[in-house]
């Protein structure tokens, strides 16, 4: 697998809060971009259908996802293996996340708050038709997907903090 994206983001919530979200399949279904269905099939293991917009195509894929190498609440690796519907081939995505709690010096309320710095990389292996879409397009798509995922997590945590769990 090759690393296509390496980046970091800040989520407004503690690593523990993020971790709790990862343990909740219903919350995962809300934050995973394009998740049409998700069911837990074993501990930290899920099966579902994801719809990913590859700019010009919306690809629906049957996906098996598992959280590996869990070191709560500091590190986890999301691995997804899937087959797109209607296209020949398969994909495997591996996204190791490192979570670091940081006390933000100036929150909007003036008090200190814990935010989480998320460092991540996206490794991808594709076979078949997806491979012919080319690395730049796949990289762009992955970058957007992870950005949406992190934004969704941010929003979910904000809603929980406001007492409106999804």
């Amino acid at each position: 697998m090759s690393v296509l994206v390496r980046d970091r983001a800040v989520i407004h919530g503690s690593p523990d809060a993020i971790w709790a979200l990862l343990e909740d399949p219903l919350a995962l279904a809300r934050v995973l971009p394009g998740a049409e269905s998700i069911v837990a099939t074993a501990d930290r293991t899920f099966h579902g259908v994801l719809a990913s917009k590859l700019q010009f195509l919306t690809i629906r894929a049957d996906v098996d996802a598992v959280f590996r190498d869990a070191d709560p609440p500091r590190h986890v690796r999301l691995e997804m293996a899937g087959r797109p519907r209607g296209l020949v081939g398969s994909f495997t995505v591996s996204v190791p996340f490192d979570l670091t709690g940081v006390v933000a010096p100036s929150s909007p309320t003036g008090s200190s708050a814990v935010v989480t710095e998320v460092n991540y990389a996206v490794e991808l292996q594709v076979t078949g038709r997806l491979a012919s879409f080319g690395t730049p397009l796949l990289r762009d798509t992955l970058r957007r997907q992870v950005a949406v995922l992190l934004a969704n997590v941010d929003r979910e945590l904000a809603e929980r903090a406001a007492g409106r769990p999804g």
Partner: protein
Amino acid sequence: MTTERARVVVVGGGVIGCAVLREFARRGITGILLEVEPDLGEGASKANSAILHTGFDSKPGTIESTMLRRAAALWPAALDELNVPFLPLGGLMLARTADEVRRLTSEIAANATVLGVSTDVLDRAAVREVAPYLADDVTAALSIPGEGVVDPFWLTRAYAEAAISGGSEVRLGQAVMGLELAADAVTVRLADGSAIHAEQVVDAAGLRADEVAGLAGDTSFGITPRKGQFLVSEEAFGVDRIVLPIPGPHGKGMLVTPIVFGGLLLGPTAIDATDKDDRSTDPAEGLRILAACQAMVPALVAAVPVRQFAGLRPVSSTRDFILRPSAISDRLYLAAGIRSTGISTSPAVAEAVVDEVLARRGWPASVPHRALPAPPIDLSGPPGEIVCLCRSIGRGEIEAACRQPTAPRTLDAIKRRSGATFGDCQGNLCSLDVARIVATERAIPVSAVEKHRRGSWLWEAVADPAPADRRGEPAEMPRSADVMVIGAGVAGQAAERAATEAGASVVGVDRRTGATVVGLSRSDGGGWVALVQSSAASAEIRVSSVIVATGAYVEPREHRPIAGGRPAGVMTSDLAWQLLRHGLRPGRVVALVGDGSVVDELSAALVDADARVIRLAEAPDALRGEIRLEGVRTADRWHDADTLVLADRLLPQAFVLRGLGLTDARPGTPAPADADGRLPLEGLWAAGCVVNPSLDHRTCAEQGALVGRRAAEATARNKDGPAPSRAAAR
């Protein structure tokens, strides 16, 4: 003949015509687009750099510059609505000398600032940081973050299909023969004798815009073609943004442009020409392009271009865009002279045209702009068996492309919609299968499918058409085995036999028997997982070892330095054999290149099909013809021929190894096996022509047997206990 009425007729199905049709539809005004060719974008829109320019270097005060700036504001929403492949890569304009650095900062960056385009001057260290692949002598660069690339075919089609979803019509293969202007309407006379009374006509006929205007008596401008030649490299060499030189006295120079679907576009040249149909290419120009691009990106010295092509840009006699009503009558509006920035300016040009027409016609301008997204491709069906091997494109995807609103009628139209025939073999392994799908979808004989423009016939039926290959379903395959052999040619069969005799359980997979291996990945428990696709399903097969014996294919014309156009009738013996086996004749007068017993056999088969065969020892250096081949040149002598069949040089067919990083995207890269047939990843082996395409049959068989034995022995060693018995294997 019939006469119908329309509010708007747009003449020309390029990117501008289609954008105008969509813009009218967004304002609630439906129209009819007429395109003479069998597909959209067959003119200037099909061969260009595919860049969405910011216009940073455009000339202030020109219509082109104004359109570029307006388009920059329109693109974000348009891209979102049209669902087109787009990459916001950014661009780097390079400076190498002190004078170029001065020009970059004091002229070009300053010009961009005047136009409101964001740019940044990078010093040498910053350039190294963002683009380490650039030549050492680059001392500064202008970063233009707003530049991007798009797929021009997709964009043109998306405009048209969005307009169709808004109630407009696109009519392909409709030649306009006359425009009769009256006070209240324009009568558009068509080649089939019918007519359309339109309240408004928009001339967006690209290279022919002056001729269309001339039908109405407007001779106020002329259009001449400017030819630009390009090379395509499937390997990207790490280039991740648009790289361009500082403009010189002879124009903008040649660019290195990432292609939205991967690979690089190199070029273009820019030569003012006179022939509006001459899209021929010249290998000498290809070398010039390579040299210019290598000067910016030295790694391109290893580039192996997969294709060379030429585009013609419509240059107006005013040297700027012409966006105005005709001097004869404002019932005819001119959108002409849209040269190299047609893709980039298309939404702004469409907006400008429609704004003015609405104002002049007094049509309600208050209609809110409707969102007209391009309809998505329906991929809900099964992928089906692999049709295009190089790109792993299944039957289902091609059928879905055929059912799009602008249904493709030609092979090139399918290529632009699905990518089929675009890969290494350039359609020589799959054109017949693709054409069969088009024929079935359109309910026409396969011999009626054409390559691109009118008259570009591909082959002729000489016998009762043979049924499609009865590939059927592969025999029930095991879900696991000791050894998988991919390919059932001479080396593959020998490998399968030898591995079986050595006690291994063996599964053989060959495309010709209905199943194709589309990917290999490491298995969690060691060994490999092969993803196998058949017409019914895809399946994973776990094996300890894989022997790749996928053979070779004949090097297509597109990889070779052969001057001339891109007519139908040029193929390799891979395709010629397929045609003959299915009762189709590749052509009437066939120039056949190559020697040896296999080529003798092909020659005899062609003669049996009533073709006249001209045997050539070497490939020609030039072709004549734009629609169908007319002749080939060897040793300064032209031979009249409507068909060229190349049967002289093989390339290894190692596509399945690319996903593993064992070969790059350059055509002709062999499987990197050692003397024992081992590939650099444990458990992978290769034998036969995929390793060395010049091997003869006997050597392939010997090598296949050797590798089969070794793979079986290695598998046995890796297992606990003794090697599996043959009984257990089967």
